[in-house]
């Protein structure tokens, strides 16, 4: 059952960002979603709606719409429940005509995502990645004999027959994940949206590629073993209404580079660039200015 709580707003809903956030024993995904929504509002000037499983009246101040669904907790990752299933519901539940479906651990740090609306009339996502400070890392494949993985971290879709087909197929793949894992020789133990999306897009395209499905720049990852820290704290702007923040856009990325059996610490500075933080602890540290 789906339940919606929406703030009263006059403006016509057209474009917006949608995030899924189901808390687990280990991670507070809803707080991550709040952090993400604040940055979306600041950098993209778009509303964010959240799909979650627990009623919390405080969420209404941060989100355009709070959409309640039942979480599917049948997925396990690293011996913990990982509630990442059900992403196919994004198409039906999105209150927007044009939606950016975003992972909550994606740091919006520029207005770059607005360009995705110009890329396709139906759907697009990333098909290539770059790991910061590990440029030689290859592209992920479902398996040695299968496809290059697409990424569900950032997905833009517009209400259209084709986008609906992709999300309907995503549901079908999720429900038959073991079969597809067997077919494509990847491990079915943990359900991954990236793999399911890859298969869904391939099926809808008749196993061909449509270049307009792919965002023409890399999804930038900060890898699991790469540290990332905010250089400044998000600060209240003096004399502005409470909650009006001056957002930090500068980050330091630190990496242990192994050379000739020795570790050498190396760093770079980032400015005005979006990135996806794979290590949740690092993401929480950024949120909490640690």
């Amino acid at each position, binding site marked *: 059952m789906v339940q919606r709580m929406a703030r009263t707003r006059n403006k016509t809903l057209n474009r917006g960002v949608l995030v899924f956030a189901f808390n687990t024993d280990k991670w507070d995904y809803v707080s991550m979603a709040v952090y993400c929504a604040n940055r979306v509002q600041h950098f993209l000037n778009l509303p964010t709606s959240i799909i979650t499983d627990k009623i919390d009246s405080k969420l209404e101040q941060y989100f355009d719409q709070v959409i309640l669904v039942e979480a599917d907790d049948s997925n396990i990752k690293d011996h913990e429940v990982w509630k990442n299933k059900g992403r196919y519901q994004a198409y039906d539940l999105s209150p927007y005509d044009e939606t950016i479906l975003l992972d909550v651990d994606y740091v919006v740090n520029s207005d770059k995502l607005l360009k995705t609306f110009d890329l396709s009339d139906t759907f697009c996502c990333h098909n290539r990645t770059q790991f*910061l400070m590990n440029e030689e890392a290859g592209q992920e494949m479902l398996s040695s004999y299968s496809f290059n993985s697409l990424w569900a971290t950032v997905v833009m879709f517009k209400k259209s027959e084709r986008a609906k087909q992709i999300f309907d197929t995503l549901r079908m793949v999720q429900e038959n994940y073991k079969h597809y894992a067997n077919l494509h020789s990847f491990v079915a133990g943990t359900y991954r949206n990236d793999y399911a999306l890859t298969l869904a897009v391939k099926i809808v395209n008749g196993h061909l590629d449509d270049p307009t499905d792919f965002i*023409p*720049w890399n999804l930038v990852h900060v890898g699991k073993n790469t540290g990332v*820290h905010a250089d400044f704290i998000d600060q209240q702007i003096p004399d502005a209404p409470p909650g009006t923040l001056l957002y930090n856009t500068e980050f*330091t990325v630190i990496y242990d580079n192994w050379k000739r059996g020795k570790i050498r610490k*190396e760093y770079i500075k980032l400015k*005005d660039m979006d990135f996806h933080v794979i290590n949740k602890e690092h993401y929480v540290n950024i949120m909490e200015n640690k």
Partner: protein
Amino acid sequence: MDTEKLISESKARFAHNSAKAYLKEKFQAKLLVAEQGGLWKADTETIGFLNSFTSEKVVLIDTFDNPVEVNRQDLLSTLTNTYETVMSEWCKEWQELETKR
């Protein structure tokens, strides 16, 4: 987090090659422009090609490999402006990074 202290205490060295790759990634995306029904990259090749014609309309292959008939002067103007803005930002940031050790 005092990142300068973190860098100093961990004796981390600035990674020039990674910084160069990051800047390339950041600014290549900024060179993309959607206009006149196509997606274009404001690069020297496209700008040079548009400049070499005199006709009002020209057919170009966009970054998605679709042929699109465009108003040459309008697209040239947009791409030139984008190129100048983005490349000057890129150069400025690169010069800042080059001074780091």
